C-alpha cells in the first residue's frame, strides 16, 4: 500500500511542478511567439502575465472558500481545466486566443495547487511530508521552467510546451480518480492565517525578484547574446544548482539569518546582472549562482512559515500560491513597459555603434557600406520578430576568408550585445528592489517571518 501510494505521489508532484513551471515555461518561446503573432513586447508578455495573474486572483479568491471544499474534487477540477486549457494553448491560432487559454490554464493551476496539498498529505501519510513534497516540486518546477520550455521550443516548436503538459495533467487526473485518499479540506476558518502574512509578503517579493533571474536573464542570454535555448538553459541552470548547493548551509544558519542572507544574496545577484558590462557568460553565471544561493537559503524557511498547519494547510497553501504569483505579476507589470521602452531604443543605438565600428575598421570600402546596410535590414527583421543573425551579413561578404572582416564582425557583435545588455539594467534593478524590500520586511517583521 505504501509503495503504491508512493507511486501515486510522483505524478501529482509532477503536476504541481508543471503548474509552478508554467509561470516561466514560455519565456524562451517569447521571441518565436513575437514573430508568429506579429505583436509587441508588451503584447507577447501577456502570455506570461495572464497565467500568473489568473493563478494569483483565483488562489486569493479560493482562500475564502477552499476550507469548505473537498480537496480531491478541487484538485480533479483543477487538473481537468489545466488539461483542456493546455490543449487549447497548443492549438491557439491567434495571440488573443492564446492569452485567453493561458488565463484559463492559470485558473486550473490555482485549483490544482490548492487541492494538491491535502491530497499529497494523505498520500504520503503526513501533512508535513506532503507539504515538503509540494514545496520541493514547486521550487524545482519554477527553477527548471525556462530551461524545459527552451529545450521543447528548440527541439520542436512553442506548441510542444503545451502539448507536453497535457499528459502530465492527464496522469495526475487519473491518480486523483484512482486514489484511495479523499481528504476533505473542511478545516473551518482559522484566524491564525494572518500569522503567515509576513512570510507570504516576503515570498511574494522574492518571487517578484525572481522575474529578473528567471525571465529577464533567460531572455538576455537567448535573444541578445544569441545562445540556443539549450545553451541558454545550461547557463541559467547555475541558479537551481546553487539553490540546491545552499540547502545544507540553510540548515546550519538560524532561520532569520537564512531569510535575510538569502534576500541579500538575491538582491546582490540581481544587481550583478544589472551591472553586466558586456555579454559575459562567466559574470552572468556568477550573478545567477548568487541568486540561486539566495533562493536556496530563504524560500524553504519562508515556505515552512507560510504553510502553517495551525492555520489550515489547504488555506495557508492557497494563500501562499496567491502571494507568490501576486509578486510575479507585480514585477512583470513593472518591467514589461520598461523593456518595451528601453530595448528598441538600445537597438537603434547598438546599430549606430556597430556602424561606427564597421566604418573605422581596416576593411575595404566595398564591404563597409553594403555590410552596414545588410545589418540595418537584419535589425529591421528583428523588429518584426525574427531572431537576428548579425553575423550573416559579414559571412555573406566573405568573412570566412577575410580575417580583418571576421575581426570586425566579432568586435561589432560585442558592441551591439553590450549596448542591448545595458538596456535591461533598469529592469534588473527593479527586481533587485523587490529582493531588498523582502529583506526589509524580514527585518521589520522578524517574528512573523520566522515564528
Amino acid at each position: 500500500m505504501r509503495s503504491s501510494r508512493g507511486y501515486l505521489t510522483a505524478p501529482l508532484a509532477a503536476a504541481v511542478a508543471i503548474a509552478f513551471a508554467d509561470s516561466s515555461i514560455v519565456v524562451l518561446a517569447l521571441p518565436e511567439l513575437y514573430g508568429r503573432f506579429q505583436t509587441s513586447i508588451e503584447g507577447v508578455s501577456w502570455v506570461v502575465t495572464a497565467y500568473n495573474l489568473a493563478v494569483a486572483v483565483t488562489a486569493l479568491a479560493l482562500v475564502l472558500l477552499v476550507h469548505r471544499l473537498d480537496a480531491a474534487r478541487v484538485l480533479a477540477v483543477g487538473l481537468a481545466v489545466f488539461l483542456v486549457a493546455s490543449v487549447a494553448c497548443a492549438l491557439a491560432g491567434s495571440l488573443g486566443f492564446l492569452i485567453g487559454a493561458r488565463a484559463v490554464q492559470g485558473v486550473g493551476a490555482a485549483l490544482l495547487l490548492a487541492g494538491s496539498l491535502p491530497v499529497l498529505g494523505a498520500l504520503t501519510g503526513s501533512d508535513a511530508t506532503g507539504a515538503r513534497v509540494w514545496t520541493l516540486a514547486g521550487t524545482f518546477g519554477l527553477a527548471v521552467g525556462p530551461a524545459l520550455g527552451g529545450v521543447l521550443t528548440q527541439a520542436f516548436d512553442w506548441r510542444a510546451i503545451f502539448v507536453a503538459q497535457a499528459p502530465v495533467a492527464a496522469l495526475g487526473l487519473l491518480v486523483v480518480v484512482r486514489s484511495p485518499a479523499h481528504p476533505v479540506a473542511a478545516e473551518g476558518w482559522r484566524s491564525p492565517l494572518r500569522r503567515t502574512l509576513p512570510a507570504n509578503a516576503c515570498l511574494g517579493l522574492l518571487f517578484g525578484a525572481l522575474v529578473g533571474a528567471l525571465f529577464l536573464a533567460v531572455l538576455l542570454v537567448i535573444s541578445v547574446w544569441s545562445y540556443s535555448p539549450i545553451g541558454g538553459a545550461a547557463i541559467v541552470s547555475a541558479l537551481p544548482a546553487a539553490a540546491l548547493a545552499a540547502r545544507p548551509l540553510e540548515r546550519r544558519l538560524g532561520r532569520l539569518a537564512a531569510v535575510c542572507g538569502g534576500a541579500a544574496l538575491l538582491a546582490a545577484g540581481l544587481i550583478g546582472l544589472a551591472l553586466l558590462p558586456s555579454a559575459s557568460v562567466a559574470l552572468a553565471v556568477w550573478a545567477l549562482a548568487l541568486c540561486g544561493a539566495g533562493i536556496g537559503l530563504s524560500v524553504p524557511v519562508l515556505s515552512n512559515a507560510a504553510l502553517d498547519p495551525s492555520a489550515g494547510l489547504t488555506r495557508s497553501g492557497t494563500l501562499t500560491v496567491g502571494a507568490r504569483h501576486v509578486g510575479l505579476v507585480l514585477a512583470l507589470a513593472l518591467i514589461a513597459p520598461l523593456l518595451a521602452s528601453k530595448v528598441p531604443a538600445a537597438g537603434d543605438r547598438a546599430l549606430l555603434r556597430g556602424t561606427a565600428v564597421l566604418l573605422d575598421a581596416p576593411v575595404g570600402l566595398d564591404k563597409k557600406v553594403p555590410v552596414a546596410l545588410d545589418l540595418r535590414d537584419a535589425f529591421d527583421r528583428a523588429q518584426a520578430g525574427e531572431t537576428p543573425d548579425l553575423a550573416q551579413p559579414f559571412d555573406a561578404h566573405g568573412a570566412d576568408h577575410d580575417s580583418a572582416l571576421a575581426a570586425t564582425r566579432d568586435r561589432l557583435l560585442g558592441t551591439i550585445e553590450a549596448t542591448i545588455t545595458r538596456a535591461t539594467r533598469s529592469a534588473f534593478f527593479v527586481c533587485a528592489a523587490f529582493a531588498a524590500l523582502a529583506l526589509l520586511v524580514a527585518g521589520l517583521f522578524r517574528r512573523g517571518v520566522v515564528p
Partner: protein
Amino acid sequence: MLAALLLSGVALFGVELGKGALSEPPPKLADPCLPRAGRTGGIDATIQRIVLDGLDGAACRLHTTREELVLSLGSGGHRRWDEHTIEVALRSGLLRSLDEAERRGDIPGFAGPLLRRLVERAPLDRLIRGGFSLRDLLG
C-alpha cells in the same frame, strides 16, 4: 559561509565596475564636424579616407552623424531626408574632402580635377559603396 557569499557579491560588483559597467560601451559616435585622424598610405587607403571624410562632411551639413547618414542610404524606411538633399550633401562633402586630401598632398595635383569631375558626375551609390578606384580612373 554566508559572509563569504555576500563578499563574493561585492567582488562581482568590483569586477563589473572594473570592466567599465558604468561607462557607455565604446565606440562613442564622433562629431562629424570635427576633423579626425584617418589612415593614409596607398591608393585604396587614400580613397577610403576621402570617402569617409566626405561622409563626415555630408553628415555635418545635415546635422547628423556619419553612421546615421550611412544607414539612411539605399531603400528602406530609414530615409530621414529626401534623395536630393542626401545627394547634394554627399557630393558637397566629397568635394570638400578632395580639397583637403589635395592640401595634405595625399593625391597628386593632376588627379584632383579628374576626381572632382568623377564626384560631380558618377552615380552616388557607386561612389559610396567604393565601386571605383583611382586605378579605374587613371586607367
